[in-house]
């Protein structure tokens, strides 16, 4: 890889949101009191907006470079220099990270804006925005970090912010618990991440080339090809460890359990963190190190399998949820599964593309559901909704568009990205028919439950009104304010469309859900793989990237022509398999069938849901309804087990170890006591006897001491006389 171009402005992408977080975090309470909520919102939103602009300019700077030269570096300072380990605080931008920062700052900015409207009844909004800005900074660090350790800083940082934001309404202990759960599960993933990092470093160090900097890793990674760790190939071990990290962050089996619970956070948080950005970090990380994963086909197989299983199982769970956000949560897990399928079959750019489109439509869905929840005063149960289409037209329209996108209906974004993945799952050498089959079925389930949601929420009659109080109880903290702010909108009244601050981002995101798909229209449909080619310089290292584009600088100006020029060479390098069209139609067909079924059950009511579950059979339905009891199993085994172990060890500590110490002390004490008794009664007895005798004698003899001089004189004289006579006689 060529030398990077040093630029000084990348740091501001990270530092500005961080600055916003610091200002709001330290002084937010005062600012809010003095200057009002508007100032807080401005302090929070402006840095993200500027960061977005900087990202865009970075994008254009990259675009102005040759594809192989697209690499900007901002080296801030030394960070950790110990021995051979030399890490700097440095940020870099290449096409891959550029895509991500655009998503993070762009969608992140929209969600910041949306939050202003959504949290208009939140008393300590400064805290919220401080967390949100901090999250943005951490996520950007994750994406921009030029070494694994800097990435890890962001990696853990987003986990922390996720914890803080899930537990934002901490006065309800359930929210706090959900936050802790998210953090701890993420930590299990982090554990894998660090192990992978250590193993990678020392494997390279064997040849004196230890490093954690991505661009050096890419050059030196071949050095580990014949090394072994714990008896398995080093590359396999390292990638598996990193994959553990990815499953934690990106909510894959078996570590996905935290994500549905994470819906306890405010809805914009769910949209930003638990749909668009943070959860995709695992995907990004694998793509970032695609050069390494390419060396470990075994790992890729594991990833594909896990991804497929996650996509399928989460989709089935989504079918039986009633909470509007839980449905979306499982849908997110499922979509992440698709991305991992892409990673697992080596179609990195397809995965990133799905990440990209998913960010738009899933954010839109979450924000739409947030709009509904906001309008219904924190009502989240879909059984209490219905008929909202006519009250909230904009929300409905955007939600519906995004639903079509996620269901994979052409020409919406999700169709292109998901279909690309399914096609690669079939056609890639790492893929297989099974992956395609389960993936398609998952897509069908997705279509079903998403439309189930649409029908339940927007169609039919409004079933709410009586249950408002219930909704309030869920978020007691906000209840007072809800009444104050929505003064003209009391109980029993009809819901109404949200404010422009909320609908604006919805519209923009929906536009994204429609349009982004066209960035990567597959060749089979006459497209140019613009997106694939944009990422090609980064992801080409493996065998599955597009063929290396070897062309001179395109003199053309403007994004479209520039991109088009890049693409030219590879667009049709893969021959069109007729099978691609068949698969495409089949998957669209499955999706349409899912939608039809949902329509039958929830709109036409030809089949009652109860009947439906009966048809499905009690056991599978219960299994799905209860999320396969995974949480319960974890609770019973891992958590209980750990706690029991900790109690046992603590008791061991208290009774055995400390007991041994105290026991030794007790033995010493017993010995001492025996000795003490001897001392008291024998030795001391003798001493005391002497004392007693002296005392007795003293008492007796004290009579002699009269205090009269003459009595002493008598004694003296008598004594002298006696001595005298004794001497004389």
């Amino acid at each position: 890889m060529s030398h990077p171009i040093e630029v000084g402005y990348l740091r501001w992408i990270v530092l500005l949101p961080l600055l916003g977080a610091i200002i709001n975090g330290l002084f937010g309470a005062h600012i809010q009191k003095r200057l009002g909520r508007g100032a807080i919102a401005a302090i929070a939103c402006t840095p993200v907006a500027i960061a977005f602009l900087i990202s865009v300019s970075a994008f254009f700077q990259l675009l102005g470079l040759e594809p192989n030269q697209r690499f900007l570096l901002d080296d801030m300072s030394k960070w950790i220099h110990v021995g051979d380990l030399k890490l700097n605080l440095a940020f870099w931008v290449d096409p891959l990270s550029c895509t991500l920062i655009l998503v993070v700052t762009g969608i992140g900015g929209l969600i910041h804006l949306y939050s202003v409207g959504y949290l208009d009844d939140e008393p300590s909004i400064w805290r919220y925005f401080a967390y949100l800005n901090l999250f943005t900074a951490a996520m950007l660090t994750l994406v921009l970090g030029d070494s694994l350790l800097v990435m890890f800083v962001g990696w853990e940082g987003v986990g922390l912010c996720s914890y803080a934001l899930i537990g934002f309404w901490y006065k309800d202990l359930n929210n706090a618990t959900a936050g802790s759960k998210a953090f701890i599960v993420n930590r299990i993933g982090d554990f894998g991440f660090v192990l992978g990092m250590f193993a990678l470093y020392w494997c390279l160090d064997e040849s004196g080339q230890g490093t954690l900097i991505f661009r050096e890793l890419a050059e030196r990674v071949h050095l580990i090809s014949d090394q072994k760790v714990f008896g398995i190939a080093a590359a396999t071990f390292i990638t598996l460890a990193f994959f553990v990290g990815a499953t934690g962050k990106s909510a894959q089996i078996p570590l996905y359990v935290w994500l549905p619970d994470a819906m306890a956070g405010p809805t914009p948080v769910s949209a930003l963190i638990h749909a668009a950005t943070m959860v995709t970090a695992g995907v990004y990380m694998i793509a970032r190190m695609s050069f390494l994963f390419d060396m470990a086909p075994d790992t890729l197989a594991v990833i594909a399998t896990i991804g497929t299983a996650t996509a399928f199982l989460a989709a089935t769970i989504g079918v039986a949820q009633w909470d509007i956000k839980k449905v979306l949560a499982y849908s997110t897990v499922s979509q992440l599964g698709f991305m991992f399928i892409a990673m697992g079959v080596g179609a990195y750019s397809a995965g990133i593309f799905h990440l990209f489109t998913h960010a738009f439509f899933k954010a839109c869905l979450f924000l739409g559901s947030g709009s509904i929840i906001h309008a219904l005063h924190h009502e989240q149960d879909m059984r209490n909704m219905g008929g909202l289409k006519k009250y909230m037209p904009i929300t409905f329209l955007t939600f519906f568009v995004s639903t079509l996108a996620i269901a994979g209906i052409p020409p919406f974004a999700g169709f292109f990205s998901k279909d690309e993945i399914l096609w690669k799952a079939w056609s890639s050498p790492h893929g297989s028919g099974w992956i395609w089959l389960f993936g398609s079925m998952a897509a069908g389930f997705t279509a079903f439950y998403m439309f189930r949601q649409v029908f339940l929420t927007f169609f039919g009659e409004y079933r709410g009104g009586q249950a408002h109080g219930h909704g309030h109880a869920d978020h007691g903290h906000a209840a007072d304010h809800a009444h104050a702010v929505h003064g003209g909108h009391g109980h029993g009244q009809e819901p109404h469309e949200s404010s422009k601050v909320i609908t604006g981002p919805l519209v923009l995101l929906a536009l994204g859900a429609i349009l982004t798909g066209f960035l990567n229209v597959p060749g089979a449909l006459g497209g140019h793989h613009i997106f694939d080619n944009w990422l090609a310089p980064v992801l080409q290292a493996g065998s599955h990237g597009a063929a290396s584009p070897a062309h001179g600088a395109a003199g053309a100006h403007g994004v479209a022509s520039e991109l088009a020029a890049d693409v030219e060479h590879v667009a049709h390098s893969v021959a069109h398999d007729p099978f691609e069209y068949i698969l495409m139609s089949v998957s669209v067909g499955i999706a349409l069938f899912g939608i039809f079924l949902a329509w039958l059950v929830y709109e036409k009511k030809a089949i009652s849901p109860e009947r439906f579950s009966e048809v499905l059979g009690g056991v599978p339905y219960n299994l799905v309804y209860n999320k396969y009891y995974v949480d319960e199993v974890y609770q019973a085994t891992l958590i209980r087990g750990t706690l029991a172990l900790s109690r046992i060890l603590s008791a061991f500590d208290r009774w055995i170890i400390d007991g041994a110490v105290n026991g030794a002390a007790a033995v010493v004490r017993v010995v001492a006591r025996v000795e003490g008794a001897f001392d008291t009664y024998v030795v001391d007895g003798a001493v005391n006897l002497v004392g007693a005798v002296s005392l007795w004698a003293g008492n007796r003899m004290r009579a002699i001491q009269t205090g009269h001089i003459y009595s002493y004189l008598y004694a003296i004289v008598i004594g002298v006389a006696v001595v005298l006579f004794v001497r004389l006689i």
Partner: protein
Amino acid sequence: MIEIGLHHYLVVSLIVFLAGLFTVLTRRNAIGILMGVELILNSANINYVAFSRFGGGGYDGQIFSIFVIMLAAAEAAIGLAIVLGIYRKFETIDVEATDTLRG
């Protein structure tokens, strides 16, 4: 009449001593007791000087007697001061009344 010899002096000294002893034993007046002590000291001095004269020992006996006189002076000064103190404290110098040191 025999020559005045050592024994004469010793007898005088003995009588003075016994008188002093008797004084010390019978007086209840502190000053009286002190006077008895002075008599005893004088009898010792007579002995010293007599032994010095008849023992042929040069000046040693006389020097000792001078030391004794010196000590007697010191003793008298201290003793009388104490007596005065006792008198102030107890309003009497009767040694029977001053038995604070009784065991």
